[in-house]
């Protein structure tokens, strides 16, 4: 099972936010799209950073009443860990666990082709588990 399989199911749509948008605007976008993170991009294609609910929570601790007007640029993670469509789900699980991150942009030949979350990974792992169980059940039935 590869990252490409997850993207096939969920599509390659990526929600972006500009570095000069405010934390308030970002929060509205996250809420409307029911997502936990957005790619930060000045031109809609380059990855300048990534920003998540966690950055908003930590931003609240750091900026308190100023948070609504703080710019995305000041809250985002600039060094972004990415993955490739050919990476295995196991590799991605390893990266998410080690780096304690829940979202990985997917890049192919330098182009942004999607984003996968820890929720996507779990969902796919679950369908694999169910498939394995079905196969075992069928096998058991044949043996009888």
């Amino acid at each position, binding site marked *: 099972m590869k990252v490409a399989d997850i993207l096939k199911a969920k599509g390659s749509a990526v929600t972006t936010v500009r570095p000069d948008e405010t*934390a*308030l605007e970002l*929060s*509205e976008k*996250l*809420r*409307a799209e*029911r997502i*936990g993170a957005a790619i930060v991009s000045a031109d809609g294609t380059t990855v300048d950073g990534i920003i*998540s*609910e*966690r950055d*908003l*929570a*930590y931003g*609240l*601790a*750091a900026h*308190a*009443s100023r*948070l*609504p007007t703080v710019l995305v640029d000041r809250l985002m993670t600039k060094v972004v860990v990415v993955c490739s469509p050919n990476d295995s789900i*196991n590799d991605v*699980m*390893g990266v*998410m*666990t080690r780096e*304690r991150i*829940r979202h990985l942009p997917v890049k192919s030949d330098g182009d942004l082709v999607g984003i996968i979350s*820890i*929720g996507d*990974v*779990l*969902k796919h*792992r*679950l369908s694999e*588990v169910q498939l394995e169980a079905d196969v075992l059940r069928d096998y058991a039935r044949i043996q009888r």
Partner: protein
Amino acid sequence: MVMTVANILKVKGLVYKTVRPDETVVEFAQHLKDERIGAMIVTHDGSALDGIISERDIAIGLAKHAEKLLGMKVSELMTKVVVVCSPEDSIDDIMNIMTQRRIRHLPVKDGDKLVGIVSIGDVVKAHLTGRLMSARIV
């Protein structure tokens, strides 16, 4: 061997971080940052499960309440109807719950007693070690 919530708690310990319902949202955000976690159990007395509150509640709270968020209490933003699991639940069971309900943290109750909390990160980690172990056995 079926991996259970109890296996996860054995590794991470019977611990959970709590916040009081009357603390402010800013105090809660500071706790998250200090502890490097994503959610906390809300309790007025240290043992009753009054609710759960996460990073997501801050993000959604900001979108809903804008600058008014700053003066709000944990009790106003927390999730009051809390989905819980038990130590005997399998990892597959809680993967299902987390996926279907789109939640990332489940308090663990043993009977009436709160004994821990498992996150989506813990589940993925457990899965990974489980697979490594079975790979070695094979």
